């Protein structure tokens, strides 16, 4: 790996862009559905990045972060940025059912984002199933997992069976090893996860069902997948569907987000050329005094508003 890509590893620009897109999306859904006092549930770790956005952008007051490691739990409590964040100790499969039994938690919609580091595995699947079956109406739920092909079987030929075990009925019997190779498996994983959520809601005839809304592939060093949607009550289904069909919805980009690691100086220089109807060319970049790969220019141009600008703080 060339050293430029390593320097800003901590920055993870693709992840930041993805996070910003998701929060913009949630923000507009929140207004559309007029969500009343939602509860934010996440895996804040020690940085609580998403919790800060939830509080600042979405103005959510009550938040719950789940932490499974002993030391991590103490550190999380220490680092928690707001007084209204409750850090709960335990693994998600233990904490979530307890939270779903708690009357203050289930009398309002949730905005839940389980940003796992691991691959989609049995535990993740069972969390998703539990959430889809039991989360209060009008909740918005998101799950992020690792899409690295090797985590689903060393050899492509082993992967269809693995995916069938994980996602059960929604995986077609005709899924080929070829469709499970790097570059293809990510799209399939995202679709299976979304279909799994749809099927879970439909199998229990959940009123309003599950409406898919988020399907984002991104990669800084690892391929990651974010999927999710809305569990509207019957009266909001059409409103939500119509809104998501509109062209302004940006949370299902057709291409994976693979953003360049720019220095602050580079990012600011590029930003000064935007917005710009015609887009920027490689030549424009050269005129600024440096150079970038064509696809990196395209990604920056598309997501310059979401590109992280807080690098200064890290130095």
């Amino acid at each position, binding site marked *: 790996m060339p050293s430029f890509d390593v320097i800003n590893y901590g920055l993870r620009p693709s992840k930041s862009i993805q996070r910003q897109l998701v929060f913009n999306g949630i923000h507009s859904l929140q207004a559309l559905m007029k969500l009343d006092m939602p509860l934010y549930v996440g895996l804040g770790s020690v940085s609580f990045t998403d919790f800060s956005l939830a509080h600042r952008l979405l103005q959510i007051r009550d938040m719950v972060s789940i932490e499974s490691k002993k030391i991590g739990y103490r550190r999380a409590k220490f680092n928690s940025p707001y007084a209204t964040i409750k850090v709960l100790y335990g693994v998600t499969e233990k904490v979530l059912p307890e939270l779903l039994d708690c009357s203050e938690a289930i009398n309002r919609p949730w905005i839940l984002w389980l940003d796992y580091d*691991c691959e989609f*595995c*049995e*535990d993740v699947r069972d969390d998703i199933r539990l959430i889809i079956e039991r989360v209060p109406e009008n909740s918005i739920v998101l799950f992020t997992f690792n899409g690295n092909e090797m985590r*689903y*079987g*060393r*050899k492509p030929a*082993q992967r269809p*069976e*693995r995916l069938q*075990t994980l996602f*059960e*009925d*929604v*995986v*077609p*019997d*005709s899924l080929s090893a070829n469709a499970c190779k790097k570059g293809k498996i990510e799209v399939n994983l995202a679709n299976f996860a979304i*279909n799994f959520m*749809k*099927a879970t809601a*439909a*199998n229990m*005839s959940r009123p309003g*069902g599950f409406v898919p809304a988020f399907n984002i592939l991104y990669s800084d060093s690892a391929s990651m997948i974010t999927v999710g949607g809305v569990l509207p009550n019957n009266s909001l289904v059409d409103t939500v569907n119509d809104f998501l069909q509109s062209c302004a919805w940006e949370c299902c980009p057709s291409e994976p987000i693979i953003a360049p690691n720019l220095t602050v100086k580079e990012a600011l220089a590029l930003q000064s050329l935007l917005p710009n109807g015609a887009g920027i060319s490689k030549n424009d970049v050269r005129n600024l005094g440096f150079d970038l790969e064509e696809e990196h220019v395209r990604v920056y141009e598309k997501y310059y508003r979401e590109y992280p600008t807080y690098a200064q703080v890290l130095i």
Partner: protein
Amino acid sequence: MNNQKLDSANASPTKEFFVNMITKDISLEDSILDLIDNSIDAAKHSSGSQPMTLGSQIDLSQYTISIKLSSNSFIIVDNCGGMTLDNAIKHAFSFGRKPGIEPEQYGIGVYGIGMKRAAFKLGRDITVRSTYVEGNRIRQSFKVPIDVEEWLKSKIQSWDFDIVEAEDMEENGVEIQVRNLTSAAKNALANPAFVQNLRRMLARDYSLYLNKGLNLIVNGERISGLHLEFAGSEEFVPMRISYNGLQNGDEIFVEMIGGMAAPPPDSTEPDEKQNSDKRFGWYIACNGRIVLAADKTEVSGWGTTNWPQWHRQYAGFMGIVLFSAYNTAALPLTTTKRSVDLTSDVYKTAQVKMRDLTKEWINYTNERKQALDAAKEKEARAKAIPIQQVENRESIALPKLPAVKPVERPANVQYSVPVKRMKRLAGELGNINLPYREVGLRSFEYTYEDLVGEE
């Protein structure tokens, strides 16, 4: 008591009964299959009504049945020849078959209820359209629009539906569109798991037709038929017999094949793979349509007199019985085509042979426990044989296993670890899908080799 008539009790059915009650005893899947059955009957009629036995040479590759499912509508279109206006007037829309109307020869529709029941099960706004050619060689079309709510409301005694003119379709055939779906249909048709499971069901239950070239398409994707296969070698040979049976004077041709489809499991403990024995058990087909699949219940006979209940130990066995009859009414069909009529004579006779064959397999799996290594070695040598290629043979052949030699005293081990760690280790051992048991054994061997070394 003299039987002097006082009055008469009204026994005529109500429309509501047909719309709301007869739809309760059938699943949505089976209703959809009823519509496909009708298209297949039409295709068979168009291609000369031949029996659908294992040896039949019928070619159905020019016929296509296409289904589109969405949360708003259900549409099925076929190019199997269509229904005639005369048929629509006299028979197709009546509830139950009228006396004198013969079922399709070697057909799978018999009770005269499938199409209406399926449409009512699916929704409230139905249009059946047909384009066909009759003797005069001119293409003709009509349609029958049914607004179920209106039809129920209409005070008129008549149960008739109006038949109106329609544009010709591209090919001769029938199209059924259902809109204003029932809430159950709306929910299911948009459920990806329902759609995938329906595909699996079609691939299995129409496998004999699909393997004769029939094109069956669901949401644009062609279904390929399941290939029923046995595992055979010199020592493992499936049974294959055929004979003619009689049901109320009608002749029924019966074919029966059974044997090992895959080696039985090493351990009979329930394992983490749910449904790992999903394919095994008995299959029953009536005129080519599989109505009972991988059955492990009393319907095929498991757990009835002289026939033990299904147990995981018996996994690996597959048996198939095909009943073919010119007169469909003679077959052991139920109205939902999801089971067998247990009172049928021809079925009862077949069941005795099914039981005896099954018991041979049960014995083998018992003997096998005492000579597992030898059995596994023999089983591994068996190769796949497609069902059509199984040769005639009065009984099944299974290997003689060597006399039991004294085994060393075993130590049974059981332990739990998080699934996540188990899967990581399985991956490192070369296959993430290895059964837990296998991961346990291999890690024991690995440690043994490392710490104890040569014996």
